[in-house]
């Protein structure tokens, strides 16, 4: 193998690594932040990459709510003062586009990012 081929190979590998690295960075940062809004205002953002479980106590329009991130990438409502408990029944959110909603508390939790695999979820 000629020296020039080796240099070309190294440059090529470096280029591939650079593009791959950039792609990974862009895609990894998506879908990992839960944004919690009450009545339209952001009251908390939760980094779902955190390995430690986190418990949030927040005030909805109706009363207190408890939201738990499990430290494994999922987040769910565990307690709410609302009468119908739809938010507590909703499956944990973990992927971009997932939503948990409490209408009486005017609470909307969304997983941010455009990295979802589908255009919309029928639920």
């Amino acid at each position: 193998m000629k020296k020039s081929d080796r240099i070309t190979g190294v440059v090529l590998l470096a280029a591939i690594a650079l593009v791959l690295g950039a792609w990974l960075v862009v895609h990894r940062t998506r879908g990992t932040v839960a944004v919690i809004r009450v009545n339209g205002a952001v009251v908390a953002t939760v980094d779902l990459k955190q390995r430690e479980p986190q418990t949030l106590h927040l005030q909805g329009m109706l009363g207190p709510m408890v939201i738990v991130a499990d430290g494994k990438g999922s987040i769910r409502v565990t307690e709410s003062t609302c009468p119908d408990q739809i938010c507590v029944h909703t499956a944990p959110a973990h992927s971009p586009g997932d939503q948990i909603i409490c209408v009486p508390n005017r609470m909307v939790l969304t997983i941010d990012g455009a990295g979802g695999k589908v255009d919309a979820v029928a639920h």
Partner: protein
Amino acid sequence: MKRIRTIAAILVIIGAGAAAFAALRSAPNPVSSTYFLMDTVLTITTTGSNATSINEHLYSLALGVDDMTSYYKAGSETSKVNAAAGKGAVPVSPAYAELLKTAVAVEAIDHGKTFDIAISPVSSLWGFTTKNFRVPSASEISTALLYSGSDELAVTASTAQLRDARARIDLGGIAKGYSLDVMEAYLRTVKPQPRQVVVDFGGNLLLYSGGTKTDWKIGIQDPRGPGIIGYVVSGDAFVATSGDYERYFESNGKRYCHIIDPSSGYPAQLNQSVTLITKLQPMRGAFGDALGKSFFCSTADRQRTLFDAVQSQGVTGAVIVDATGKRTTLGPIALVPEAAP
């Protein structure tokens, strides 16, 4: 010399990649707006010019439908019809009469056994209108069933009438889908056309691109777990889902969902979720929303018969998860399983 050429070529490739990446990022950003309406959430996401004002206008249209159909608002046409129960016919708007007729048309497919807007006195017994949930006695249910049902309802092009003074109608099972019809009709008139609009109204979807997008991926929520069970691919469509997994209450360890089977007066138990896909044609949003409840209250055999009966009426596909978790699709669609994340 050769080496320089190769390195130059590589640099060009990197540059092209970066340019493509930048172009991708500068594509018009979707504008997403969230509203609370009809005891649920309306999320509108528009990509294209004037996205914010389109979202606001779509919301105002949904608000108008709520003002017309609400069971709770005193000035709604539903409230007027209910208040006049047993007293005679009341005048209604042509739009309201058309909506009632669509509801009656869905009821007629199965003779009111699986969908009925006049089942509301029975739903009220279970507390789904007041959220004071309870399990009523069998005799309460059989008594309420005597004056619940579309036999009590008479509709003309300009009037509606409930014969029994205790009868009530509730359009909660069709109003969200109808709102999507009204929104779709407006979107067709917008100039310039938005690139695409996704409306999620409490799980009922409108997927609109003016016919340019043929590969919408519609995720189907897993009724018993986080995430989706897979997706189906469709062109522009209305998508209506009826499920037992968000609106329900539990009593003595038993789950009672909000969809009442009009033939028994008890919450439906045969299925976990039904998703119906209908074409963007007039009133197909309302039709699919109502028809989803029919499927939800039906056995697998009955669902196949129903599907054959409605395929010529703009229904393009159904995804069903029955009470045991078994998944079925009807029509020319395939459920693409979702790999674990």
